[in-house]
């Protein structure tokens, strides 16, 4: 390569840099975007990496209806476990099953552990009678809760309960033998709260249940959890081609030529948006069909699914138009589009479930249309709810869309 070629390379590089520097807004977004990603994803993923640790324990509601003292002992064991935090009271009152169901249903807590009234009694019977059933503990969860998150929690809870049950069972058996031999009861010789373990084998059954009104077979699979999340993620990616299409037409003059025809601005916008809207609907339909055909996911009430999808597509189109109105160059639109499509997805819980995020991030997530769309899809597919319940999310999505449209129409310049 000769000297001339190097100079040519330098000339081209300088020209490119000059062009980049001329579009300061695009350049700023280029730098702002990774910073936002680092901040948001770090905050959002904090829950994934730190949940279940001493500093960030997983909170579980306790519904203790046990007439005996076994549930209390197990609760103490759980409280001493670093990764778990047992919430025994809300507003100074013990938690009833109804209250737990409400909070889990509202996704304020991910899970609740419920001890029945006869829990201690069932352990006693199980300890001495070979025919008695295994004691049961209920774990109430939101069906939309990520199973990867719940599995270790369930395992930890089950282990703690089993350990205590097995210990009690062995002591009861020893006591029984000792009394037959005329010796004092074992519980007078050994403190039951000692941490040695005699546990082996199956000590209890942890039954997973869902809040009232949710079908018992509604336990979600990974696909059922992922399909709606990634569908929403994909739907909002329409922002990029939609907004880029607008700026290209404005730049090459075809937008002006269309406006020179007897066509209203409103007609033009509807005509421009309609194909993208239809594309979004086809995209959504295809995603759910793939999930249904290949992975046998439950779709829930189809009319509710359609209603929510129509609102979601409208919202995504509104966002696309807003990006088209705010971006002045193709580079700006690219950066803004990616920014909104990915950052809002991360905030809205598409990449990691919102409940593992810090509380402030969880609150922020409700300011994204993504979170409401996901909540709606989960309500339909996993919680078995229908149009009567999902209209709230639909209205909210339409409101987000309306907000984006208003900003877009306010900032949109039909001529350059």
């Amino acid at each position, binding site marked *: 390569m000769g000297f001339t070629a190097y100079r040519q390379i330098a000339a081209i590089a300088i020209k490119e840099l000059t062009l980049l520097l001329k579009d300061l807004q695009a350049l700023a977004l280029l730098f702002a975007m990774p910073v936002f990603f680092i901040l948001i994803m770090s905050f959002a993923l904090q829950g994934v990496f730190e949940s279940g640790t001493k500093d960030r324990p997983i909170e579980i509601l306790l519904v203790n209806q046990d007439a005996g003292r076994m549930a209390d002992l197990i609760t103490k064991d759980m409280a001493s476990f670093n990764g778990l935090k047992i919430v025994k009271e809300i507003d100074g009152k013990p938690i009833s099953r109804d209250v737990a169901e409400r909070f889990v249903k509202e996704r304020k807590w991910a899970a609740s552990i419920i001890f029945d009234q006869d829990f201690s009694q069932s352990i006693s019977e199980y300890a001495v009678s070979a025919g008695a059933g295994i004691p049961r503990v209920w774990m109430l969860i939101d069906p939309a809760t990520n199973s990867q998150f719940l599995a270790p929690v369930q395992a930890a809870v089950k282990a703690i309960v089993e350990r205590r049950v097995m210990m009690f069972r062995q002591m009861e058996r020893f006591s029984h033998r000792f009394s037959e031999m005329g010796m004092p009861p074992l519980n007078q010789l050994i403190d039951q709260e000692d941490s040695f373990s005699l546990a082996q084998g199956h000590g209890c059954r942890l039954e997973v249940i869902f809040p009232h009104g949710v079908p018992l077979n509604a336990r979600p699979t990974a696909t059922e959890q992922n399909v709606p999340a990634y569908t929403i993620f994909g739907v909002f990616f329409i922002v990029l081609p939609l907004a880029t299409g607008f700026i290209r037409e404005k730049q090459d003059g*075809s937008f*002006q030529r269309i406006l020179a025809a007897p066509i209203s601005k409103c007609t033009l916008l509807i005509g421009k948006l309609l194909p993208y809207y239809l594309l979004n609907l086809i995209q959504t339909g295809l995603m759910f069909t793939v999930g249904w055909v290949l992975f046998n996911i439950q779709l829930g009430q189809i009319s509710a699914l359609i209603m929510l999808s129509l609102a979601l597509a409208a919202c995504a189109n509104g966002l696309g138009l807003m990006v088209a109105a705010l971006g002045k160059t193709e580079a700006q639109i690219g950066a803004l589009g990616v920014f909104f499509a990915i950052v809002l997805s991360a905030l809205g819980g598409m990449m990691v479930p919102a409940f593992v995020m810090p509380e402030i991030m969880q609150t922020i997530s409700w300011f994204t249309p993504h979170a409401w769309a996901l909540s709606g899809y989960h309500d339909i597919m996993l919680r078995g709810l229908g149009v009567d319940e999902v209209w709230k999310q639909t209205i909210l999505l339409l409101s987000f869309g309306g907000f984006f449209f208003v900003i877009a129409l306010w900032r949109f310049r039909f001529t350059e």
Partner: protein
Amino acid sequence: MTAPVIMVNDLTKTYDGVVAVKDLTFSLERGESFGLLGPNGAGKTTTINMISGLLKPTSGTVQINGISMIDQPLQAKINLGLVPQEFALYPALSGRENLTFFGRLYGLWGQTLKKRIAYVLHMVRLSGRGGMSVSTYSNGMKRRLNLAIGLLHDPAVIILDEPTVGVDAHSRHAIIRSLEDLAASGKTILFCTHHLWEAETFCSRVVIMDSGKIVADGTPSRLIQEFGSGLIRLDIAPPVPDELLNNLKRLGAFHYPSETAVRFQFASAEPNRDLESVLSLSAGLQVSVRAVQLLEPTLETVFLNLTGRSVRD
């Protein structure tokens, strides 16, 4: 006498207090070929955009076939065909697909649309190329397709913004011939161009704009007669002495470097007298004059006289 096809009254446009077009008033009769001329920044495109309904005037009115462009833009636009300076085309589509899209915007469908597409493709001499992707078109073909789109809905008025920019002689000729055919068929043509010879040969009337105002309005021959003067072009070997430079500037000359000399150009009402005085001064200063051209009065010299600038300035 029939009503004017285009009527522009006191048209004004200001941007943040800067006046782009001021109190513009003119009208076009049916069948007129009207040239809108002016240096860059004169306000031609702003005027065209206001007439086409793309830009809202700050004040004044525009009527197309008696319909107000401000009050009833959709009805007024039906009578207009705009041919913008940009290639306002979709490169991924074929020429015919582009025409189909724009035709539908004007309410043309089915057989009517097919017939109109065939007609305009024939008119701009692209009949055999309609099915090709526009991305494969030459600049000249794109310009012709641009024109065809403007003609598709058979408008009463055709507005063209620099329709021959960047095309070869063959395409330019084809475009001008198409425009002549249109003018002969009674269409009103508003034509904005940098090529003054095109305006001179094609337009039945021209308006010269400068700084947002009309500075001359009439037929090319009348304007040449009224404002035209001889155009003197001198190529002088550098360096040009200050005395000669000042003298030429006094005569209104502007200069630009050519390969081996500095070229001076100025319009003169008395070209023989002015040329003689410059040549004798050059001889006295022992300056080498490489070439002398005395050009006949044209629209170019009219333009130079009225605006003090070349049309390409």
